[in-house]
């Protein structure tokens, strides 16, 4: 078990290193010069050259990489040219907002895809099954970018049901930052009103992320549940006098969880990328928006950091999933030992 985890961590480190190398050189291949942006209009060549030197951009690429890699090993993600702060500090600042969106979306995804699958599987081929399929297909068919804007248009602009472009009502005082997770901070502050507000602000971005993933998620959960329905233990459970609901929640769900977990792990990768996109659409102040805005001015350290952080997240998630399989299904313990 420990050996397994050790091996996986080693693998994860290797993957991270590879990502660092690839993204670094990719970022240097694009002949972009953030210095010119910093210099601004009416700047002289001289000013631009000085800024370039300040950020070490005039050094040979390999030398730049050496410096970057040395820093990376020491946990230094470099400095953002745009915010003029250490990237690690920026990441620490923006990560909670991203994680909050990610976790809320993920939870919503799990709940929605499972509930819809359960609704659909009650009568396969029935009207509800069809409705669920249509609804989820619509969500997937629409590109995230457009979906986000459409949701904004309808629910903010037309209906005014949901607010826009922040994590909290702008004119109100947000609860003091303790965890950086606004929802949690609202609860810590003992302010349920603020919690509801924060929930409203996160609703549309999260929904945008989730709707896109729902079709695949629901279809896979539905298929997994449908497969379980055919299994003999279901008949046994019914034979004991369990109601269909008891059979579903007490027996089928846990069995279906393994394939669902596999799909979910893959979906999580998409989730991560959609969260980043949605941050840009909704001005959600997370690491995605941070990296995007940096990218626009060719400030690449944040972009590399984003790649590293999301890769790290993915590695951790996969490890978690592998550790979770035997918990869900006692038959697979052999894999990890």
């Amino acid at each position, binding site marked *: 078990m420990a050996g397994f985890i050790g091996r996986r961590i080693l693998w994860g480190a290797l993957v991270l290193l590879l990502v660092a190398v690839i993204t670094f050189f990719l970022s240097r291949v694009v002949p972009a010069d953030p210095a010119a942006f910093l210099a601004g209009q009416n700047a002289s060549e001289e000013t631009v050259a000085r800024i370039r030197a300040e950020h070490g951009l005039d050094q040979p690429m390999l030398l730049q990489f050496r410096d970057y890699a040395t820093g990376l090993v020491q946990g230094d993600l470099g400095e953002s040219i745009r915010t003029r702060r250490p990237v690690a500090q920026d990441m620490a600042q923006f990560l909670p907002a991203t994680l909050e969106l990610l976790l809320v979306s993920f939870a919503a995804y799990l709940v929605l895809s499972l509930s819809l699958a359960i609704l659909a599987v009650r009568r396969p081929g029935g009207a509800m099954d069809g409705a669920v399929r249509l609804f989820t297909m619509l969500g997937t068919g629409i590109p995230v970018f457009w979906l986000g804007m459409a949701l904004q248009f309808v629910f903010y602009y037309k209906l005014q049901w949901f607010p826009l472009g922040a994590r909290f009502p702008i004119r109100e005082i947000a609860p003091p930052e303790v965890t950086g997770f606004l929802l949690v901070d609202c609860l810590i502050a003992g302010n349920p009103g603020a919690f509801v507000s924060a929930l409203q602000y996160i609703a549309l971005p999260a929904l945008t992320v989730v709707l896109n993933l729902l079709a695949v998620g629901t279809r896979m959960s539905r298929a997994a549940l449908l497969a379980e329905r055919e299994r003999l233990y279901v008949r*046994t459970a019914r034979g*004991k*006098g369990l109601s269909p609901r008891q059979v579903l929640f007490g027996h089928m769900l846990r069995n279906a969880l393994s394939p669902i977990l596999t799909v979910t792990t893959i979906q999580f990768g998409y989730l991560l990328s959609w969260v980043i996109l949605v941050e840009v659409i909704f001005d959600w102040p997370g690491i995605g928006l941070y990296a995007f805005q940096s990218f626009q001015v060719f400030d690449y350290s944040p972009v590399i950091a984003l790649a590293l952080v999301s890769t790290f997240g993915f590695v951790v998630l996969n490890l978690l999933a592998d550790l979770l399989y035997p918990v869900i299904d006692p038959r697979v313990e052999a894999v990890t030992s």
Partner: protein
Amino acid sequence: MLEVENLTVSFSGRDGRAVAVDGISFSVAAGETFVIIGESGSGKSLTGMAIAGLAPEGARVGGAIRFDGQDVVGLPDARMRRVRGRQIGIVYQDPLGALNPVHTVGDQIAEALRVHGLARGREAMARAVSLLERVRIPDPARVARSYPHQISGGMRQRAVIAMAVACNPKLLIADEPTTALDVTIKAQVLDLLRDLKAELSLTTLLITHDMGVVAEVADRILVMYAGTVVEVGPAASLMDRPAHPYTSVLLASAMMAEAPPQTALTVVPGGTPPLGAMPEGCRFHPRCPRATARCRAEVPVLRGVGGGQAACHHPLVETPEDAL
């Protein structure tokens, strides 16, 4: 105690309605061991499941099944659930499949007690352990904590039996309980069923394709072929002097003791006709050595033959009318 009257189980398919159990009737008296025997596809398992209210989705059940005087056909599931598991216990063919792989054996037995409100929490688990003991599982506490894949096939079937009898049911439906087991285990399980029957004064409905099993336990036997009853009667007379050609072939195959059960039935040339393409007249006639033109045209009805009843135009035993 159990009366089945004109039971039909049918499925609607693309080519119309396929009738898998076609109007069978029988009754089981309290305390007896009633065996339904037939090849796979004969509708015997469907009959058993229909009685338990577990006919597969899409199946339409017709006729009447009176359990303790109450017709359970068309009974709302919520009411049937109080009967199932509580009054009727069921043992299944494939104990590995029948057990939920992600729950411990003990949990699954205890659940049967919990769902009927007979025990709760730790007490349910303690009773599960004693039930395991009752079905003669050594080290029952350990087995209760085990997952199905961690114990042997015989133990699994005993666990399934323990689950079936957990609530002291009146009727035990055992659907091919020994098919998946090897010979020695099979004998042990049959012994167990017989003992439990005595201990718990169970009425047993045993469903099997294996005449060898029948001989050991049956009080009365019903032979099914292609969804119909071909012969029914007391075990002794039926096995001694079968009236229907099909029954005699089944018996002959059982005589070849060494032959594994699967090959035994190949003695009867051909197989059960598919649901959608039932032959006219006697459904057995294409495989019957005694078939005549009458058999091809006219459906035989059950009538008294020998010690029981058979549906055959040319029975192997004289009918009471013939004797006259």
